[in-house]
């Protein structure tokens, strides 16, 4: 269970306007149905504010309180507290969507059912040595909808599951896949593409985050336009236009950098347009690998 602010901390950190804002939201949370008292509600929301906007101004904290999904948050906390009525409401609302989401993620009924059941077990929680039940719903903070949060948790669970299972591939399977015959890669920093690689890296560093996100999603992750569009809440054709513009800009800037590096216009053209992939000495596996260790999830 996440450490939530104690009443003493609450009194110390939450100013009167923030407390008033939290109190206003209690009415719409429906917490009384599941035995969430105003004090408990205040405690939960102060913990959320501390977590996401502890250093922010009071105005921003009040704004954050205004954006929280308090109905879902009280339901999740009531479930975590073991309220039967809350569990009834939770199952009624989320049982079907959860299985449907698991199926959309796994695209296989058996795997989807396993995923969903596994998550249900985590959501219900297990008792620790002190007899206190640890429930995954305690991690829900109400920033997005509870249904969306369940989808995200399912997705993370699916990725973890895929990774753990991928290590269990047999040697025969590896040989069938050709893994046993991988040649030792050579360094990718030598060769005719070194200058263009440097120019691209410099240009990428100057680009905006969203532009780099689009490029990575399209060229690196091989996502579809529709998929990227869903993530950014725009139509796929909008993504297509943006990618065209970004690519145009990228080309222009890379060309400028190459010319600034002493290459003639013709040499730039040759390098950019007639780059023969056979001349490139690239260690693909190393390139695609994440170079920094992934930090522990912030949860």
């Amino acid at each position: 269970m996440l450490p939530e602010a104690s009443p003493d901390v609450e009194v110390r950190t939450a100013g009167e306007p923030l407390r008033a804002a939290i109190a206003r939201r209690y009415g719409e949370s429906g917490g009384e149905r599941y035995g969430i008292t105003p004090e408990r509600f205040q405690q939960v929301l102060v913990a959320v504010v501390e977590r996401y906007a502890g250093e922010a101004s009071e105005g921003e904290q009040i704004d954050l309180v205004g954006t929280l999904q308090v109905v879902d948050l009280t339901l999740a906390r009531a479930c975590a507290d073991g309220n039967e009525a809350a569990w009834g409401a939770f199952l009624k609302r989320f049982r079907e969507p959860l299985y449907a989401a698991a199926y959309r993620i796994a695209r296989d009924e058996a795997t989807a059912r396993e995923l969903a059941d596994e998550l249900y077990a985590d959501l219900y929680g297990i008792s620790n040595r002190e007899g206190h039940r640890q429930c995954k719903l305690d991690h829900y903070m109400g920033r997005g909808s509870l249904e969306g949060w369940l989808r995200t948790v399912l997705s993370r669970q699916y990725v973890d599951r895929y990774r753990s299972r991928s290590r269990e591939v047999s040697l025969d399977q590896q040989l069938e896949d050709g893994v046993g015959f991988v040649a030792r890669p050579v360094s990718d920093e030598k060769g005719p593409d070194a200058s263009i690689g440097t120019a691209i890296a410099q240009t990428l560093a100057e680009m905006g985050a969203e532009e780099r996100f689009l490029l990575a999603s399209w060229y690196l992750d091989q996502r579809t336009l529709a998929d990227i569009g869903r993530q950014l809440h725009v139509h796929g054709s909008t993504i297509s236009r943006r990618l065209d513009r970004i690519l145009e800009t990228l080309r222009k800037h890379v060309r400028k950098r190459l010319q600034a590096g002493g290459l003639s216009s013709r040499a730039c053209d040759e390098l950019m347009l007639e780059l023969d992939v056979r001349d490139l000495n690239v260690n693909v596996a190393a390139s695609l690998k994440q170079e920094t260790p992934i930090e522990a999830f912030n949860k």
Partner: protein
Amino acid sequence: MKGKRSEDVNQPQSNPLRRKLARANPTAPHPDDDVLTAFAENALVERERGRVMEHLSTCAECREILSLATAAMPDVVVQQRLHTLPVRPPLRTWLPWLAAAAGVVAVSSAVVIHQKELEARRQSGGGPVMMAKVTPPPPPQLQQLQPTSVPAPQASIQQQATAPAAKSQPKEAAAASVMQSQSNQVETPTQQEAFKKAPSSEAKSLRSMESQYGNLPLNTSGLEQQNGLSRAQAPPAPPPLPPPTTAMAQVQDAAAGAPADTVELASGATQVSPQSAADSGSSASAARMKAAPAFHGAAAAPAPAGGAASGSIAGFSAAVARAHWRISDTGQAQRSLGNGAWQPVLPDEKSQMRVVSVFGSDVWIGGDNLHLYRSQDDGITWHLVQLPKKAAGARAVTHIHFQGEQAGTVEADNGTRWTTVDGGQTWK
């Protein structure tokens, strides 16, 4: 679309761009599930969203989770979220307002002209107030062909007006006498001049206003019969107008130089025939109007050219609101005008559609059996574009990419590509 990019950048496993993208280091700790969820639901404030975006641009794992989570959203939720932001670039959001403003200006100028006319008549003695119907006079050499028993031509102006006092203008007076003998109505020369000079853009504005108010008099039955296709959601066609007699048709054909606008200003309703725009020039808007069915069935779909045969599908709706597009799960191309209701735009198309591409008001839809449709007016009218045969094995249009209204590329499922530089008239 994808094929083009694949050609440009997506080289097999050794592209420098991909390499550099993959080497980007995550700049901040991973956002937790709550923040990722809020990002996926567009519920973060701008500053926080920027931070998450910065992280996502460098973290493949979070991108993967975000992608899976959004893919798991129910379709209904996805559509609702797509509607929260404009599909078109923000720059074009002023276009509907401009059209509405132009319409208001056109109507108000007509009212001002009318009031000035009334005032001028009052000052010159004034005549009895009566209904006036104004018809542009045919050329003098054709006046004798005009039968007095034939109903008034379609190009007419009806409005409340006083009788003209300017008998000194023989041409208008002659035409007025013809009309007066038919329907006891009198023309006003000033009004006639005003509507003669009315540019096609004003006519279009009037038409768009009329569309907005759901009083669209366009007749689609001609093209529907021509193509054997119709749209389920098309409003019922207005009753057919009486066919012109031969003499009348001759008059209309010969008087092509005269304005053929049909403008009615009565009880607030405004009507403009698309023929006026079609006759007015070779602009894109005129071509668009030509594509739409017109009165008397005079205007037809653009003729095929350059080896690319085109058919037409008639059908329209009063589309003034911004259109949203999608291909449904069943492969049906659908459009929504922002009210949440999706309507099929090609209801008679049996093949499954696969891709929709929108460039301004140009919409392309492609699908199985290499069916490719184009609309130049936001889906009001559609044309079936025949792609010339190339390599065997191409079964479906899977990618459409247009850099402008004219130049673009269409790609089939087996990689066959067709390129046009003239808006689909010819393909290579």
